[in-house]
């Protein structure tokens, strides 16, 4: 791996971690799992500018480090399940090249929430399914917001 790429990826991980921290400062709504997903900005940026492997590495590293720094034991399971599902969806969707990064971000946001619901289902039983509608809604809304900003980043920042 070239030095430049190592530095770029490290910067993306660092930025993603800062965005996670900034997001944790925002007041949280009453429903668990409803969040903006600001860190996904860096994952989408990496997906479009560096490649899918790099994006996956950045996302998983971020989840691990953020859980270690600010989270508790359960939060790693929830975030990891969300991140893996969301990554898989975004990578596949980007490969089809039929949608812009706004839709990629929306699918990422919704799949992240679905991953969390599945984890909660395993840990706490099927009643968590009642959160699904509101989490799909919030994932879509957050995905549009993050995706719009990611689109700007992807367009304006030239890594060459």
């Amino acid at each position, binding site marked *: 791996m070239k030095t430049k790429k190592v530095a770029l990826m490290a910067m993306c991980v660092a930025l993603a971690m800062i965005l996670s921290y900034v997001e944790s400062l925002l007041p949280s709504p009453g429903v668990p799992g409803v969040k903006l997903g600001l860190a996904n900005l860096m994952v989408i940026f990496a997906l479009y500018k560096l490649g899918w492997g790099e994006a996956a590495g950045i996302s998983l590293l971020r989840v691990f480090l953020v859980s270690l720094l600010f989270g508790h034991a359960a939060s790693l399971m929830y975030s990891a399940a969300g991140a893996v599902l969301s990554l898989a969806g975004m990578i596949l969707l980007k490969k089809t090249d*039929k949608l812009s990064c706004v*839709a990629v971000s929306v*699918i990422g946001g919704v799949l992240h929430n679905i991953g969390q619901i599945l984890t909660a289902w395993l840990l706490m*039983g099927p009643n968590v399914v*009642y959160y699904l509608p509101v989490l*799909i809604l919030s994932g879509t809304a957050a995905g549009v917001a993050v995706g719009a900003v990611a689109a700007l980043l992807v367009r304006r920042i030239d890594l060459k």
Partner: protein
Amino acid sequence: MKRLFADKKRRADLIVIASLLLLALILWLVLGAFRTEGGVVVVCVDGVETERHALTEEGVYPLNGGSNILVISEGQAWLSEANCPDLLCVKQGKIHYTGQSIICLPNRLSVTVEGGEANAVDVVAG
């Protein structure tokens, strides 16, 4: 400058967003249709049931060694206090439908409303 969105992609984006919103709406309606007033509040710690109370049984119950305080009043249940940092469980408010639950992730505790009547025999020790 090349436009970010080809129009075809923008249309496809809107279709994806619209179908997700529709999906959320349908799920909400379907899940709502199966919703009934519950009868019992079941408390689980680490996925294991620790206690249950009827929704008619008014009172204040410390859960999980006092980590969360459960209040049952006027047919509704809620957590009034907790020692977790985010207090999400307290913010989740009052519940009374069958299947509704309050979850405190840090304390791995859940309070769920179930249908039917409370039965003293159902109280599991340990």
